[in-house]
């Protein structure tokens, strides 16, 4: 193609997609984004795999099935589950109150919800440990009731719930805000009781967001470390979480074992995230029309 042809005829480019874009810089911005995603995400992942690849399969299996590690999986899984379920209920309530009612201090509470994100987890852990210790503000009362929180798995649940509550609130809140009051009014005008309105109208629109929030809260709790170790007591076979096991292996300079356990946490987290996304997109497709 000659130069004159290029200037006189409407420009025909080899990449037909490119000429259609209005905003410039697609290539550059995508390139930089991809570069950073790989730097932030893929590099450590690869590092993890490379580190574990120094082990034989048997060593790998032995490391990740060590009874103490297995016990830590169990503790982590059930505490994370308990924490995220608690957050599911409490977070929904909090989001509901923040969206539906006007009261003094609403803005403050709305801001405070993000505190667990902003607060260094270690600070949260120390604070929780102090509060729930047998002579702490909460602990002394709970002690009278015969409930021990600090230095038990329940402490782990408390720490996990604290650090991951914003996930539930912040995923449910926008959906609640978007719910049209007309839907509820329509249901009531058709004679539905308050309970039925919630079950049949509000909850069905809400629960995809709620499940996502709970799942995010669960995934986050699986990897929580800083807040937990101060309050958990870290008794082997009782209140050791998996992330602590990684830390212990690192302290023993057993990088391969640490990576092996870490890769298990990573695997579970990725599978969960992937599952949430697939499930959610399927659900949304139905609501927004195929």
């Amino acid at each position, binding site marked *: 193609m000659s130069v004159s042809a290029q200037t006189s005829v409407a420009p025909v480019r080899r990449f037909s997609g490119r000429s259609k874009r209005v905003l410039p810089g697609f290539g550059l911005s995508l390139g930089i984004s991809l570069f950073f995603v790989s730097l932030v995400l893929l590099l450590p992942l690869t590092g993890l795999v490379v580190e574990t690849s120094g082990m034989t399969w048997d060593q790998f299996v032995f490391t990740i099935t060590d009874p103490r590690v297995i016990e830590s999986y169990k503790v982590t899984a059930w505490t994370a589950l308990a924490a995220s379920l608690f957050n599911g209920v409490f977070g929904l309530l909090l989001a509901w109150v923040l969206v539906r009612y006007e009261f003094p201090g609403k803005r403050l509470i709305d801001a405070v919800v993000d505190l667990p994100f902003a607060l260094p987890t270690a600070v949260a852990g120390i604070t929780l440990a102090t509060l729930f210790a047998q002579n702490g503000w909460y602990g002394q009362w709970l002690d009278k009731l015969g409930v021990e929180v600090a230095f038990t798995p329940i402490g782990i649940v408390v720490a996990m719930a604290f650090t991951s509550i914003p996930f539930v609130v912040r995923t449910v809140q926008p959906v609640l805000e978007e719910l*049209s009051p007309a839907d509820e*009014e*329509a249901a009531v005008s058709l*004679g539905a009781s308050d309970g039925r309105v919630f079950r*049949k109208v509000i909850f*069905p629109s809400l629960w995809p967001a709620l499940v996502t929030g709970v799942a995010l809260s669960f995934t986050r709790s699986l990897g929580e470390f800083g807040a937990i170790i101060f309050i958990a007591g870290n008794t082997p076979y009782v209140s050791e979480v998996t992330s602590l096991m990684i830390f212990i292996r690192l302290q023993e300079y057993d990088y391969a074992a640490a990576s092996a356990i870490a890769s298990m946490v990573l695997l579970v987290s990725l599978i969960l995230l992937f599952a949430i996304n697939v499930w959610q997109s399927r659900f949304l497709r139905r609501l*927004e029309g195929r």
Partner: protein
Amino acid sequence: MSITIQNINKTFGKFQALNNVSLDIPEGKLTALLGPSGSGKTTLLRIIAGLESSDAGKILFGGEDVSHLHVRNRNIGFVFQHYALFRHLTVAQNIAFGLESLPRKERPSKQDIAQRVDKLLEMIQLPQLADRYPSQLSGGQKQRVALARALATQPRILLLDEPFGALDAKVRKDLRRWLRALHDEYHFTSIFVTHDQEEALELSDQVVVMSQGKVEQVDSPAQLYARPDSRFVFDFLGHVNVLSGVVKSQKLVQGDAWVSLPGTRGDQEAQLYLRPHEVQLSRSPSTHARLPLRIQSISLIGSEVRLELAPEGWESSELWETGMSHGEFAQQNPTRGELWYAVPSVGHLFEANSHQPRTVDWNFQDAANASSM
């Protein structure tokens, strides 16, 4: 079931949405609540439904006081502007919602509900869409489903809040006709809110014009258009040509324009309101009026030719408008930019100290003058 509204008041903060509204809605009729936004028409509808509570006043359904009855016990059907269909339920499930919400004792059996839903789908002419989700329907279809859902429990009263507001012009017209036909068949007492005068006049048996929280006029569409009894109703219902000036020696004068008004007392401000069809165009002024106007635009589409005219040598806040038949247009051949004179046949005079208009008929007066002089 007739509806009686007694002295309803409602304020939102400092804003008075409804100011002592009293109204009778006849049984089996389609009544329109018409008014500009902020006139309180939607608030009134919501208070009738029980979705909003009034600060004072009573609502009676067929003589029974329902002011303190909860929405769910008022047995009304409510249709929302944006349909408010349940997104996660199919069309059939949406329609069945009200029936399934009935207390167990009154609830029909599953088969009965299914049958009723089928019947309603038939009525809205969408039986093939029973298993679709709302997101797969067009706006017009959604509103039909919403209507079927509202009618499923056989409510005593049907309330519609700008039911066609979110639809495009063509669909709106179709749905309007369909609703009218449906109403003529079933005769439920219904009230619908609209800000569209054409819609109100075309669809309803009775129009309630509202403005600033008050009822301005209640009348049949024909009466309302022919005899508006306030400036507001005049302005609000269709186009109106206005000459405002001062009455001097039995003439209303402003600048170069005047209209003779026999029997008026002098030296007061007054406005003359003329509907487009009450004005003819002529190349020269008549004996009873001189209203010079310059043709600004000519619109040929429709059953009549519409002309927009700008006052020449006097002023009006809006352009004047009038029509002529296509035959007349071909004969007289008015063109843009030409100077013509408006000749009123009938007019409505608002004198400075009265809110009610006085009708002036020049044809009649000319005849009377001719015979007496």
